[in-house]
């Protein structure tokens, strides 16, 4: 029962957070002024009366609080408004562009997790060996290499000079790879995912390795071995499970960093995702899109955090009693 109460408490906190952020953004962008004023400012033939009529049409003549609550109400019905730039329902934009972002993010985090566990465990079990030092140095370097510089280098090397991978976009308009749309989209994903996964892999590897080293030193590992259990079994089922627990919280933070810097990633690769959409919206002050994208991104982060919190409680029995 403690678990349920805990989850509910976290849920409430998260919802409050998402709403809080959206309120912040809303009042901030409206600090610029009414969008209609901005749009129609200094357009020939536009009188103040016309502006008022347009405002009334878009219901932008009400007080800010009213506007916000109405927006929130619409959101609850999955209506995010219409984009000023694209003249499409924001919801559709969010879905299409959001899917592209998720493709990259989820793939990247899964790949980095897999590699990090494999390399981290291997390095920890061969502590002080050449492999260990090699892994540590590579990971240290990787942690400092700014992701977006790596992205630029990747494009330079693999796209411009070697011509192996495409340098922009998520799909080819002509000459799809081997004629298969699936392969084509995977081919486009390789470079951006590599860029995203690099930093995470480096950080996670270091973390898992160092946790494993600590756990392997514990008495219960020696006791497990002394009871005749096979080494591989001891390492993976006894040690890794313990070592992974702190890495779990870090996973949420890493996901947050990755998603948070999506604008940069997607600009480098001209990837049609939420980040790119967000930047365009900010530049051109497309209010509905700004609000919608913000909400979705915050929601995704908040969900990721909540999931890790829950997973934490399930994996580590020591937490449950609190």
């Amino acid at each position, binding site marked *: 029962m403690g678990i349920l109460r805990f989850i509910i408490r976290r849920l409430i*906190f*998260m919802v409050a*957070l998402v709403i*809080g*952020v959206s309120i*912040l*953004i809303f009042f*901030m*962008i409206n*600090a*610029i002024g009414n969008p209609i004023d901005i749009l129609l400012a200094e357009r020939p033939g536009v009188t103040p009366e016309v502006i008022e009529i347009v405002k009334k049409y878009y219901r932008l003549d009400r007080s800010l609080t009213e506007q916000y609550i109405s927006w929130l109400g619409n959101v609850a019905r999955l209506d995010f408004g219409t984009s000023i730039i694209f003249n499409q329902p924001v919801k559709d934009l969010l879905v299409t562009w959001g899917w592209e972002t998720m493709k990259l993010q989820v793939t990247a985090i899964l790949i980095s997790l897999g590699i990090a566990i494999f390399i981290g465990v291997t390095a920890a079990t061969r502590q002080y060996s050449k492999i260990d030092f090699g892994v540590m140095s590579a990971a*240290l*370097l990787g*942690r*400092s*290499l*700014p992701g*977006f*510089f790596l992205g*630029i*280098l990747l*494009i*330079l090397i693999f796209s*411009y000079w070697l011509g192996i991978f495409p340098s922009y976009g998520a799909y080819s308009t002509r000459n799809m790879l081997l004629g298969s749309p699936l392969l084509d989209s995977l081919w486009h994903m390789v470079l951006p995912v590599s860029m995203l996964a690099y930093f995470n892999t480096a950080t996670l590897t270091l973390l898992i390795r160092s946790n494993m080293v600590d756990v392997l030193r514990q008495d219960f590992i020696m006791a497990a071995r002394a009871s005749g259990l096979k080494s591989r079994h001891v390492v993976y089922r006894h040690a890794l499970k313990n070592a992974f627990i702190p890495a779990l919280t870090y996973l949420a*933070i890493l996901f*947050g960093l990755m*998603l*948070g*810097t999506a*604008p*940069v990633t997607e*600009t*480098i690769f001209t990837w049609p995702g939420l980040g790119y959409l*967000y*930047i365009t919206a*900010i*530049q051109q*002050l497309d209010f509905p899109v*700004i609000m919608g994208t*913000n909400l979705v*991104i*915050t929601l995704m*982060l*908040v969900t990721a*955090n909540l999931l890790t919190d829950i997973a934490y409680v399930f994996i580590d029995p020591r937490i449950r009693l609190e």
Partner: protein
Amino acid sequence: MEHRQIGTKADEEGKGSFPTPTEIDSRKHGMWSLGWQRFKRNRTGMVGLALVAVVVFFALFGPFFAPYHPNDQSAMLEFRSKAPPSLKNLFGTDRMGFDVATRVIYGAPTALVVGVGSMAIASIIGIIMGGFSGYIGGMADELLMRFTEFFLVIPIFIVILIIVRIFGIVVVGTALENIPYLNLSTIIIILGVFSWPPIARMARAEFLRLKEMEFVEAARCIGVGRPGIIFRHILPNAMPSLIVLIALGIGGAILMEAMISFLGFGDPKAISWGQLLYFNYEFLKIAPWASIAPGLAIFITVLGFNLLADGLTDAFNPRLKE
């Protein structure tokens, strides 16, 4: 902190004897000197320090020996823009005829100002908030924890982008517009404001840990007042962990600013590495050196601070080697 050391003089054969005072070893046993001695032996830390020193050097003295003026576009007139590295231009020229090397050098002071400036703000706020809440406890503490959690979960970068953009617009037409480097200063302040939570968390943890220690009780017994305890006893002992975070934060802030500028939201009047990337990214295929040089500069700087932070962690918390 100097103090006498009383040690045992045992001779080689392991025969014990009565304790005798050794020579008064002034200045060798204080926390900082010990830390420095340990730091010197740590190779990663020293490499980090070297890199940071190089960057600082270029920041302070670079403008004096830079080959060209940063706004010198003469190369364009001579049809030498977008030229590869040569004897005339060490790193080539960029799309507008600027000398890349010069611009990169001039980017160094910007980077350092951003890093140090924002972390200074973050540290002051963070240490005060964290220390206060850690020392006092109670409601203030709870509030702070919620606050830091908030900052941990939200997509910081996304929010910063919009704040910078809004600020840029709001300021147009007002008196503030004429402040030099206004955009850059705003970025520094915003970065500072968003970076204080991790510092506050660490400060709080340290204060919690240290305030129960016996030396604090002892100080209280001899009549040291509260401010004395905080500033002369607890704070100096909390500094090592905080300095590590601050070093990491400087690297992080520089990276953040680079990303903000790369997306086009930076200060057009300030020369920053991110700005250089923003200007030259389109021409990556034709003039890659114009993007590689600033990218490398960012890499080296961030790497330097990260390694420095690693070295400092080892220096102040030596892990017991088996």
